[in-house]
């Protein structure tokens, strides 16, 4: 199969799908003899992305694969197509989501400890229903509280390929020397450095 035909099929599939398509999913469209190599597929995707220059849409890679999306600068016009305004999220919800994203796996009590205030069940339910977070396990302490983590859909929704692409957390300003020595280790949470690097893969840092 010639390169142009492969490219046409990949473009058409990405536009026909209602969610991002992974490399594997794209390769699966081609029966064995005509299946392109992963390298070729990647090259085709890069060419398709370039071909979007100057157009109204762009080809973007997110956590679960590739998708065509309307360019951000056109949102003011294209948004008029939809009657519903995009939802605005409260600070409480965004802070809760941020804690789950950067500190996962994390319990509700741990979120409350950082925020200094109770987290409403409504917020947790909203995040679960949006499928931005999920229960990834239970903490082995009394009551076995749920541990929350973020999902692929969360990354997809925010246009991220991995947690490593989250905006870096602000640096902690060094506390006064006498206080520094006295800082208690963060209870409940694992050592931030290790954990975060494990999550985001080589080369990616969250700080």
């Amino acid at each position, binding site marked *: 199969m010639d390169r142009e035909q492969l490219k046409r099929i990949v473009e058409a599939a990405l536009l026909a799908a209602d969610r991002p398509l992974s490399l594997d999913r794209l390769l699966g469209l081609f029966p064995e003899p005509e299946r392109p190599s992963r390298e070729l597929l990647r090259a085709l995707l890069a060419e398709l992305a370039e071909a979007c220059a100057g157009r109204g849409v762009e080809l973007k890679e997110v956590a679960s694969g590739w998708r065509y999306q309307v360019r951000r600068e056109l*949102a003011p016009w294209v948004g008029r197509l939809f009657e519903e305004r995009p939802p605005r999220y409260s600070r409480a919800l965004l802070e809760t989501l941020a804690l789950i994203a950067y500190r996962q796996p994390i319990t509700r009590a741990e979120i409350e400890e950082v925020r200094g205030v109770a987290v409403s069940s409504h917020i947790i339910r909203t995040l679960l229903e949006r499928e931005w977070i999920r229960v990834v396990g239970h903490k082995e302490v009394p009551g076995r509280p749920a541990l929350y983590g973020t999902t692929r859909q969360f990354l997809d929704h925010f246009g991220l390929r991995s947690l490593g692409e989250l905006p870096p957390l602000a640096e902690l300003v060094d506390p006064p020397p006498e206080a520094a020595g006295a800082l208690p280790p963060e209870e409940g949470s694992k050592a931030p450095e290790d954990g975060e690097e494990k999550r985001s893969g080589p080369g990616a840092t969250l700080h």
Partner: protein
Amino acid sequence: MSGGTGRPAVGAAPRQGVTGEAALGAGGPTAVPPETAAPVEPIAVVRGEPLLEPPKDLYIPPDALEVILEAFEGPLDLLLYLIRRQNLDILDIPIAEITRQYIAYIEMMRGLRLELAADYLVMAAVLAEIKSRMLLPRPAPEEGEEEDPRAELVRRLQEYERFRRAAEALDALPRMERDHFPARAEPPEAGPPPLPRATLRELLLALQEVMRRAAQRARHHVTLEPLSVRERMSEILAVLAPGRFVPFQALFRPEEGRLGAVVTFLALLELVRESLAEVVQREPFGPIYLTAPRGAPEEADGPGAA
């Protein structure tokens, strides 16, 4: 680091207004002794709420009133607001001053009958405790191990602020349905689209759920005949048609044995009871026929009626 720099130890000698007001630029009256910052009386009613005069030495920008009313995400948020408003060093908080302001805000919020989460009061207690510890004579810093009473609070404030900013950064990320929209083209019409499938398990769970709901409503008791009877009722109905008389015996299948006969008979009784079938007998001891009541569909002779 900033800890050891020019600022005198806070708390040892509370000097009201020094850092706070200078940064605030509130021109108003000063020198209210810290301990008398509250209580205050309502001076006006705004949107149905009594408005209190803010403490004299506490500048509340008009637009901040809304902020106070609605947008604090908890005591740490409020504390950060107080600190940042006055460009104070978070690592060297003038604890007495901040405590006083914090409590003044709390009093005001209570005065406005805002429902205060208990967390706010806990923080007030924490602040008071730190303040009292700061007043104690501090041992000579020989080891460098000595703990600043504010250290834990500073840590929490910094930690919270990091995530407050992270939340803002998250909100600023371009996201779907607000900044981007998925681009889709009409899929090709390649034959009929695949029909959804369902599993028996799904079916059973659905039934269980609906029965559970029905039981909760409890208005009627859902009685469920043995399945085989209901099924046989369907089968018999499928053979019946108005004007068509089916011999009673024809409805029974010898190969099903006694049990089958009982099921068929129960099905017939139920059909008759529900006026779905009529029993016809033209003469005493004559053959019994079944037929559908007038007006029943005539095409009921479906493939399922085996």
